[in-house]
């Protein structure tokens, strides 16, 4: 027993992995498993996620490193992991009904989701290049399969295949970059890489910088930053809606956390080099996200371009390379995740007697039929557009504030301008819902989906009243990362 006490910081991961395997075994040996209906594996999965979250809450967030620094547990990882688990659990709760109606709910999809969550948690805690890659692959492989899970639809298979091929390409680039970084610094450990990079003059760092660029390309693909975003609209549209909701929330945060930790812990000495890349990714994502979404007719594609835009805004926080910037990024992502979950709860409820619909046109006149849902969706879209006093406004306020503090005025100005363009397509949806003639009638909202919808709407509305819990937690998380970096640099 004594030997295992040291592993306590990674207890949540261990519990969730074991939970996944237990559900897998139940699925194998129970005979009453039919597609869409089984022994309640969905609720079991939610329970496992909640237990994992409780274990994380139970920890104190003190910085601990396991396995020679391969697994780092600190306030930053605690914040991100709680968000990831919460997002995964909420997405699952709101989509269980849809999954079982479309005969997609099986023990396997639950197991894959749980293992993807384990991968995300390992990404958040990764302290060296091998842990980074293994966590990323564990998450990605599970997501490729989940994207293609609906074998009765060609689009789902197409989404899975596209995601897989492009994802493998990006993993290859990431590995190539990692091998260059290892070759030029002689270590896989972020803290050692930072020390070696600090000691070398900039002219000898070219190999390291080339490696870093490849590493960032791989990670930029995972957060779908322009110009590595091509897969996003197709995968969002093709995958079953519950799966898309899952993709849009937790994995984004995990990949972002990984990017932030890698850059801040591993490469603080050459920050001026990677800041240029982040600034470029940020501007390109914001601009493309704003303009490409205008012509979309399918609401899932609209959400894909909207997520690309939001990635751009969140990247501003990283581009500042400051504690305030990291805090802003975490606040932005937390609010983005809640808004996305709320929006997808509404999209899941867009179903007629003939089955689910995805056109923006079919939302027309929703306010006359179902005022509650129309109101929540309108609030969420107002918030995404950044209209005060909703949560999305404060998210943007924090990142732009951090950018101004660090003197990145161009970035902030481009951000404000592109959010004005972005407001157009969000407001168009609101206009369609409130002022157009109604065409189709939706079935009533399922209760579990409705609860999640209400929660998300309440968060977006009430964030202005009590912002401090989230903002303070994000500050503590950001501080833990920057303090560690500063200590390593000394």
């Amino acid at each position: 027993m004594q030997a295992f006490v040291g592993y306590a910081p990674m207890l949540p991961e261990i519990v969730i992995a074991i939970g996944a395997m237990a559900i897998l075994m139940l699925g194998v040996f129970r005979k009453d498993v039919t597609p869409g209906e089984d022994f309640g594996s969905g609720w079991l999965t939610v329970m496992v996620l909640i237990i994992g979250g409780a274990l994380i809450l139970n920890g104190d967030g003190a910085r601990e490193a396991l396995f020679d620094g391969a697994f780092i547990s600190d306030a930053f990882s605690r914040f991100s992991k709680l968000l990831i688990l919460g997002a995964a659990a909420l997405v699952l709760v709101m989509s269980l009904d849809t999954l079982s109606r479309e005969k997609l709910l099986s023990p396997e999809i639950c197991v894959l989701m749980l293992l993807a969550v384990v991968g995300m948690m390992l990404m958040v805690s990764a302290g060296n290049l091998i842990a980074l890659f293994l966590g990323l692959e564990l998450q990605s492989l599970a997501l490729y399969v989940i994207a293609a899970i609906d074998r009765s639809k060609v689009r789902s298979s197409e989404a899975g295949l596209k995601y897989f091929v492009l994802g493998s390409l990006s993993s290859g680039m990431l590995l190539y970059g990692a091998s260059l970084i290892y070759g030029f610094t002689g270590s896989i450990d972020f803290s050692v890489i930072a020390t070696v990079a600090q000691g070398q003059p900039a002219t000898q760092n070219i190999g390291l910088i080339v490696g870093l660029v490849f590493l960032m390309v791989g990670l930029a693909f995972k957060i779908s930053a322009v110009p590595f975003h091509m897969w996003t609209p197709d995968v969002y549209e093709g995958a079953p809606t519950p799966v898309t909701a899952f993709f849009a929330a937790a994995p984004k945060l995990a990949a972002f956390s990984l990017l932030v930790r890698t850059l801040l812990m591993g490469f603080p000495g050459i920050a001026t080099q990677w800041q240029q890349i982040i600034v470029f990714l940020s501007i390109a994502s914001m601009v493309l996200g704003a303009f490409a979404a205008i012509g979309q007719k399918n609401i899932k594609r609209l959400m894909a371009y909207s997520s690309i835009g939001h990635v751009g805004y969140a990247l501003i926080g990283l581009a500042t390379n400051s504690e305030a910037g990291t805090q802003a990024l975490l606040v932005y992502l937390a609010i983005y995740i809640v808004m996305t979950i709320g929006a997808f709860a509404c999209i899941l409820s867009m179903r007629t007697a003939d089955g689910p619909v995805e056109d923006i046109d079919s939302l027309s006149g929703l306010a006359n039929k179902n005022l509650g849902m129309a109101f929540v969706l309108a609030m969420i879209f107002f918030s995404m557009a950044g209209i005060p006093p909703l949560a999305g406004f404060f998210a943007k306020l924090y990142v732009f504030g951090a950018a101004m503090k660090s003197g990145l005025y161009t970035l902030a100005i481009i951000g404000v301008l592109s959010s004005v363009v972005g407001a157009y397509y969000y407001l168009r949806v609101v206009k369609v819902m409130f002022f157009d003639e109604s065409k189709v009638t939706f079935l009533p909202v399922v209760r579990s989906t409705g609860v999640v919808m209400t929660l998300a709407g309440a968060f977006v509305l009430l964030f202005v009243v009590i912002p401090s819990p989230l903002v303070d937690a994000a500050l503590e998380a950001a501080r833990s990362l920057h303090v560690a970096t500063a200590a390593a640099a000394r």
Partner: protein
Amino acid sequence: MALTAGFFYLFAALAVASAAMVIMAKNPVHAVLFLILTFFNAAGLFVLLGAEFLAMLLVIVYVGAVAVLFLFVVMMLDVDFAELRAGFVKNAPVGLIVGGVVLFELIALFVSRGFGVGLAQNPGAPVAQMGREASNTQALGLVLYTKYVFFFEVAGLVLLVAMVGAIVLTLQHKANVRRQSIAKQVARTPATGVEVVKVPSGGSVIPAAEGRS
């Protein structure tokens, strides 16, 4: 020493020759078999270097799994290799130029820097800490389950995902699929397995399909 050198040239020459045959063989199945021969020779080279673990891995993973998979793919898919090769003469000059550039770069690199420059001169380079007595399989085993146990276990989870994913995406529960039931096969007796049919002279009888499963 001369014996080692002799084996080195044997394995190296065979590896290059069979690699050339991989791309020149007319029959794709032969090409895959030559690929397997190349792997074996590469494994031989690893053994000469004292890296017997890599040699075993090469034989088990590449010959045992990957090459056999290639063989299945080549034999099962109807790929028209004549068509694939049609543009060879047209594309050959471009390929030669690219190959020539890469060769020139390699030669330039080794001439200018020699073979000895590498990680050893880097301040952060890892230092080999194996005892002199440990073979490299033993040395790997000593760290794989202790120092690197975290990576080992996570790699296990990745493989679990791969297995579950492959099964989820390909297994189909169809009602009319005939599956082998060994118990049923064993329980057959001459009374149920054999049917005596009277064949009319000049005619034919199609036996009833019952009992076949």
